[in-house]
C-alpha cells in the first residue's frame, strides 16, 4: 500500500464533486473517466432520510492485483512510496487490470483505448504539494495524510472532546 492516505470527513462533505472536476482538469482525464468519485449514499425508502457522499479513489494496495494482472508492465508501483500508477504509453487496453481489481478501480478511456487511474497526482507530491482533489476541496473535507497521522489526529480530537467534560 502507498504510505499516503486521503482521509475524508463525511460530515463536512457536501457532494459538490469539485474533487472529481479538479482531478479531471489536472489529469486531463477522458470522457466519463473518474479517477476519484464521490459516491452518493441515501437511506433506504421508509427509513429516516439521509444523504451522504463517500470519496472513493484507488487504495494503492500493497500487492496490487492490477499490477500483477497487467501483461505489459504498464501498471506499476513506485518503490519509494507505493503509489500505483499506469504508464499510458505502455498500456495496450486489454482491461486485465479492470477485471483483476476487486473494486474495479482502473478507469477506461474510450477515446485513447487505454486505462487511466489515480496516481495521487504524484508529480505534485514530488514537488512537495498535495493531490488536486485534496488541495482544492470546497469544504476542506479531504485531507492528504498518512494512516499514522490520521489516527493520531483522530485520537487527539477525541481526547480534546473528552477533556471538555473533565470534572
Amino acid at each position, binding site marked *: 500500500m502507498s504510505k499516503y492516505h486521503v482521509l475524508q470527513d463525511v460530515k463536512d462533505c*457536501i457532494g459538490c464533486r469539485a474533487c472529481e472536476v479538479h482531478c479531471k482538469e489536472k489529469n486531463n482525464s477522458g*470522457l466519463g473517466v473518474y479517477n476519484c468519485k464521490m459516491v452518493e449514499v441515501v437511506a433506504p425508502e421508509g427509513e429516516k432520510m439521509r*444523504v451522504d457522499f463517500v470519496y472513493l479513489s484507488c487504495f494503492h494496495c500493497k500487492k496490487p492485483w492490477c499490477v500483477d494482472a497487467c501483461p505489459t508492465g504498464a501498471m506499476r508501483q513506485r518503490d519509494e512510496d507505493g503509489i500505483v500508477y499506469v504508464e499510458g504509453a505502455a498500456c495496450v487496453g486489454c482491461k486485465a487490470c479492470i477485471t483483476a481489481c476487486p473494486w474495479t478501480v482502473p478507469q477506461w478511456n474510450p477515446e485513447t483505448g487505454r486505462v487511466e487511474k489515480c496516481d495521487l497526482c504524484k508529480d505534485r507530491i514530488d514537488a512537495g504539494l498535495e493531490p488536486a482533489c485534496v488541495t*482544492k476541496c*470546497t469544504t476542506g473535507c479531504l485531507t492528504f495524510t498518512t494512516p499514522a497521522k490520521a489516527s493520531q489526529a483522530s485520537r487527539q480530537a477525541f481526547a480534546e472532546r473528552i477533556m471538555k467534560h473533565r470534572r
Partner: protein
Amino acid sequence: MSEIKHTICGMCAVRCPVTVRVQDGKPVWIEGNANDAAMGKSLCAKGGATFAQRDDKQRPLGPLLRMGKRGEGQWREVTWEEAFSFVSSKLQGIIEEHGGRSVMFSDRGGPFADLRQAFVKALGSPNYMNHDCTCGRNTHHASRSVYGMGRKGFDYDYANTRHLVLFGRNITESLKVKEVKNVLKGLKNGAHLTYIDPRFSVTAGKATRYWQIKPGTDYALLLAIAHHVLDRGYYDATFVEHYVTGLDEFRTFLQPYTPEWAEEQTGIKAKDIMAFCHQLNEDRPSVIFHPGWLYTRYQDSFYASRMMHIMNALMGSIEQKGGLFYVKGAKDAGKKGLKSIAAAVPAVKEERADGCGSRYPHFDTSGGMLHLALEAADKADPYPIKAYFIHRHNPLIALPDPEEQRRILDKLELIVAVDINYSDSAWYADVILPESTYLERSDILRMEKGLKPGFGRRQQCVAPINNTKAGWEIYVELARRLGKEEYLPFKTIEDIWNYQLQDTGVSIEDFEDKGFIKLCDDPIWYDRDKLSFGTESGKIELFNKKLEAQGIPSFIPYAAPDEGPSGSFRLLFGRCGYQAHGQHQNNPILSQLLDENHLWIHPTPAAELGIKDGDWVEVAQGNVSGRIRAKVTGRIHPQAVFMLHGFGTQVPLQKRALNKGLADQIFLQGKLTDWDKAGGGVNLCQSFVTIKPAASQELK
C-alpha cells in the same frame, strides 16, 4: 515563464477570489485565492471547469449577425467593426425615433454592473435591469420594509452561530464557497441547523432538524413561530424595547396563528414547532433566520421573507456575534469608496418602463423588474421599447414562459446579446457580441463590503483565444460610436481603475500582492447600543406606514396556497452544486457530471401512477409536455415534483446539452404576469403539472 495572478472567478454569480498560475501564456493551475483566509485554496466544481470553458469551441467565438429568422440559428461571422457598426447604427435610428428610453438592458447584477449602468444612462435610458425579479427581489424589498435597507446590508456570522434557520436556502448546493465553509464551521462548533424545504436536499442532510413542509406554506409556519415566540416571551425583550416599533400590532395580528393551526396548514407537528421555538430561546441572540436568496416562489414569499427578517429582530441577532452583522463600507473605515462611473452620468428624468419608483413606488429603482419591462414592451405602455441588450443573462430560461417571452421579444427591433455561451436568449438575438471568458478579461474594480471592507480586482490572466472582447471594451466602444464618449472616456482598463481609485489613496499596484486590498486591519462592529436603521423612524419597523399608504398591508392574513387541479403536482426546481443557471450544462467537464435532469416524485403517488424509479414519464401542462426520467424518492413532498433547472436547451450548437433533460420553465405558462404585488418577484413555484408514464423507448 511562470506567473501567479489573482483574479475573481466568473463561472457563476458568486464571484469567488481565485489564483491562477500561467505558464508561457497558458493557464495551468487554478485554485481559491488563499490570501483570503475564509476562501483558502478551495474551489468549487464550476470554478474547477474554468479552463474547460475557455477551451470549449461550442461557444460564440467571434461576433455574429443573424441571417434568418430569430432563433433559427443562421449566423454570419462578422468583424467587430461590422458588428459595432451594425449595432450602433440600428441603435442610433431607434434612439432618434423613439428616444433613449426605448432601450432596455438586463444583466445578472453584481459588483461589476456600474459601467453597464453608466452605458444605459448615457444612452438616455432609465431601463437598466438585473435578474433579481427571479431571485432576491422579494427578500430585498422585505428587508427594506423592516430595516430600511436592502437585503445585502446584512451578512451572517455563520461560524459563530448557535442556530441557523433556512427556508429552502440550500447552502450546500446553491453554493457559495466561503459561506458553506463557515456554515460547516458553525456546525462543527455545535450549532443547530433547522432546514425547511419540501425537498430533502443535501443541506437537509446536514441539518439537526429537517421539516418536509407542505409546499407553499412557509408563511404559515413563520406566523406560528412568531406567535409562539411572542406568546412565550422567547424573544430579546431589551433589544425589541430599544429598537423595534409596531410590536403591539404584530402581536394582535398573530393571534389566530397558533402552532396547532400551523400543523394543519404545513404538516409540521405543533409540538415540534414549540420545541423549536424553545430551542431558539436558548440559542438567541446567536440565531440567524436566513431571509432567503432566490425567494421568488409563492404569492406570499415577500411576507414570508418579512417574517424571517422580523424573527432576526425578535431574536436580537442584529450586529451580534453569531447573528447578523452590517456589512461595512469604505466610509466605516474612514476612507473614500470607489468612484462610480454611472453616478457621473446625468440622471435620466424619464419614468422607468417597468414602473419601479412611479407606478410601483415601493420597488427599488436600482435593479428594476424585468418581467414588468417585458410587459411594458408588449403593450408599449408607458412607451415603446425597441431595443434590448442582454448581458450574460438568460431571461428565456430564467423567467417563466419562454413562448410568451418570444412573442414579446418579436416586437423589438434590436436584440443584442453579450455572452460567453450560446444561451437560449443569445440564440434568439440579432447580434451576438461574444465576451471573453473571465480568465481572458479584466473588469472594473469592485467594492467588497464586510466586517473588513476593501476592494477587489478581476484582472485578465491570459489572452483571449477567440475573437472576443471584454464587456467594458464593448460598451466603451458602443458609447463612443453613439457620441457618448464623454461618459465613458476610457481607452484601457487602467484608465477605468484609476478613475475608480482617484479618491481612495489606493493604487492599481496595491492589488498585485493579494488580488484585493482591505481598508482596515480589524473587523468593524457598530456599537450595539447606538444602532440606527434606514427606516422613517430610524427603528426596525414591523408596521410599515409607507407600504400601508400604497394599500399594501404590513401584515397580510394567511391564505392557503392553491393546490392545483386534482391529480396535479406543484412543480419545484432547484440546482445542484456543480451546474448553475443553465450556464454549465454544456461545459466539457461539467456536462460529464450530469447531462440530464430527473423528475423527483414521491413513492406514494408514483405507485398510484405505476411509475418506478428510472422510468420515463411525461410531464404535461395544457398543450405543453415533455419527457424525463423519474427519480422515485421520499425526499420530495408527495404534493410536489422537482427537477433541476437549466436543462433542455434548444440551442443546436450546445451539442453536449441539446435535447438532454427537460426544462422546467416551459411549464410556467402564464406565470410571466403572475408576480408578488408586494415584493415584486415572479412566482416561480406556482405551476402545476400532471405526470404519467411514458413509452419506455430510449430517447436520443
